[in-house]
């Protein structure tokens, strides 16, 4: 190739170092080794956490607020005792559970809060006390673009967001002058998770997944994980998957473990399956306000229960039935 001597200025660099270094060729080699065979990946939450999560891992949860939450996996993760996690800070209850137990060392932070119910007291205590050693700031779009860059197999994505703010100052993004237009552009670095957790509507035993309604950032995050653990409301036959392959949002070869976990999103909602348990959620919101309240909640609803089945039984069939929708995300 003929070489022209030109360059583009890096006009700005966010002051936070990358919590998770970028290693695309390493990710490629990892992906090459993942099985492409249609093997049965069903297991329990405990098995999945045991096999695919290590102390110090960079982990992430895909969900939005209290919607489609992988909470059966989160509870198993808490019970496992594994710790020192670095996390992508999108999600609410999942992160509060881990933070309240002191399991989080570093956070790529976007939004952790209770939406209409306000700030998270758990987050306040964990961050203000310095228990979390390092907090890096991002916007919601930026964190998803970080997953998307990894999903595309490239080291960064350009963006016109975050520019000019303290958010980018406290991030690990960079700003360059675009080599095509000369305009300033944020470069959002790729983020590959060691292990990701996603709850879906339906999956087959190999991990082919269907999601109803909006898909949040499931498509991007599922493609940005070294290990990917899926829980599903329903396990369906692979023949069903083959009947409408355009409904598969997460193909099996990305997936390492499949857990059948009905009501895993409880007390959150699950599109076309059940609504949020407002009564329980309000109670939770109250309890998380104090360390004692949160500890009590964790003991009662997480630590003292052996598994997801025990939670389901504790909540009770009647309560769950009352939350269940008649079908379809189409209110009549």
């Amino acid at each position, binding site marked *: 190739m003929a070489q022209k001597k030109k360059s583009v200025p890096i006009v700005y660099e966010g002051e936070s170092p990358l919590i998770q270094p970028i290693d695309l060729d390493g990710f490629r080699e990892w992906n090459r080794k993942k099985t492409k065979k249609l093997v049965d990946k069903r297991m329990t939450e405990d098995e999945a956490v045991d096999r695919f999560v290590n102390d110090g891992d960079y982990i992430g949860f895909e969900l*939005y607020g209290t919607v489609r939450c992988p909470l059966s996996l989160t509870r198993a993760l808490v019970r496992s005792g594994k710790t020192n996690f670095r996390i992508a800070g999108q999600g609410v209850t999942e992160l509060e559970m881990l933070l309240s137990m002191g399991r989080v060392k570093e956070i790529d932070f*976007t939004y952790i809060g209770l*939406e*209409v119910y306000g700030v998270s007291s758990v*987050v306040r205590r964990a961050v203000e006390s310095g228990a979390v050693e390092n*907090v890096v700031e991002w916007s*919601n779009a930026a964190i998803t673009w970080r997953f998307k860059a990894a999903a595309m197999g490239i080291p960064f994505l350009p963006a016109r967001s975050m520019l*000019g703010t303290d958010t980018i100052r406290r991030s690990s993004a960079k700003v360059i002058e675009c080599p095509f237009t000369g305009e*300033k552009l944020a470069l959002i670095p790729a983020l590959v998770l060691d292990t990701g957790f996603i709850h879906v509507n339906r999956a087959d035993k190999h991990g082919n997944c269907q999601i109803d309604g909006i898909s949040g950032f499931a498509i991007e995050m599922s493609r940005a994980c070294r290990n990917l653990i899926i829980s599903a409301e329903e396990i369906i036959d692979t023949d069903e998957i083959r009947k409408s392959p355009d409904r598969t949002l997460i193909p099996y070869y990305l997936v390492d473990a499949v857990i059948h976990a009905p009501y895993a999103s409880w007390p*959150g909602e699950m599109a076309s399956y059940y609504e949020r348990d407002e009564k329980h959620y309000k109670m939770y919101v109250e309890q998380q306000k104090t360390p004692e309240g949160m500890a009590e909640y964790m003991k009662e609803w997480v630590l003292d229960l052996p598994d997801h089945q025990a939670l389901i039984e504790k909540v009770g069939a009647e309560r769950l039935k009352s939350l269940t929708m008649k079908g379809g995300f189409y209110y009549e």
Partner: protein
Amino acid sequence: MSERYSPSELLICLSSRVMEDGTTAFIGTGIPMLAASLAQSMHAPNLVAVFEFGGTGAILEKLPLAVGDMRTYNKSLHASGITDIMETSQRGFIEYGFLGGAQIDAYGNLNSTVIGDILKPKVRLPGSGGGNDVGSCCWRTIAIMRHDKRRFIEKLDFITTPGFLTGPGAREEAGLPRNTGPYRVVTNLGVLGFDEETRRMKLLSVNPGVKADDVVENTGFELLLADEIGENPAPTDEELKILREKVDPDGLYRK
């Protein structure tokens, strides 16, 4: 404040009136949601509600409880995901974006990240979320705020979301899309805009029973005043009727 309506109901009506028909609006949970729904029933039947996690064009029949819940794409035209929506905004398709925050400065910059030093936070707030993206790429943003001197301040502890940054030309200089930025600030005291030349906040109109001086006194930076400061009409009977019977029948915002 009259007892005919609650402070929240006033904010909802004021925000609702800002939105033009036939445009798109980025909606978060809470007041923006009710404002959009009210606008659809009043003057803006073609207002398209867009929700960050993927819902576009929902019929806003039930109040969403979370930013990605089923109600945000109930009978909607398109249910996709967050990148599709954020990139649609980056492409210039979203007219209005609603914002909130713990602090706002004269240029409409917002802080929803931290009170105190980011490295030794006094209060850790929920963070940017989609706020920074909305403030970066929507054409016009509308901030909804409680109006007092602790919130309307000279210098933010942290700029989470860009307003006009340091003033005229600063957004473009930073690389943000051309001709975008803060449009209105709707508060319990009045409605504020931004001066075309200085890009500083300017009082446009006051709420019923509020005087311009009250607004100035409750603002921690030098506030510009419009040549003629209007008075915002109180919520009309029709607005209140629709709000209470249709938009918020459970009365979540009647307090």
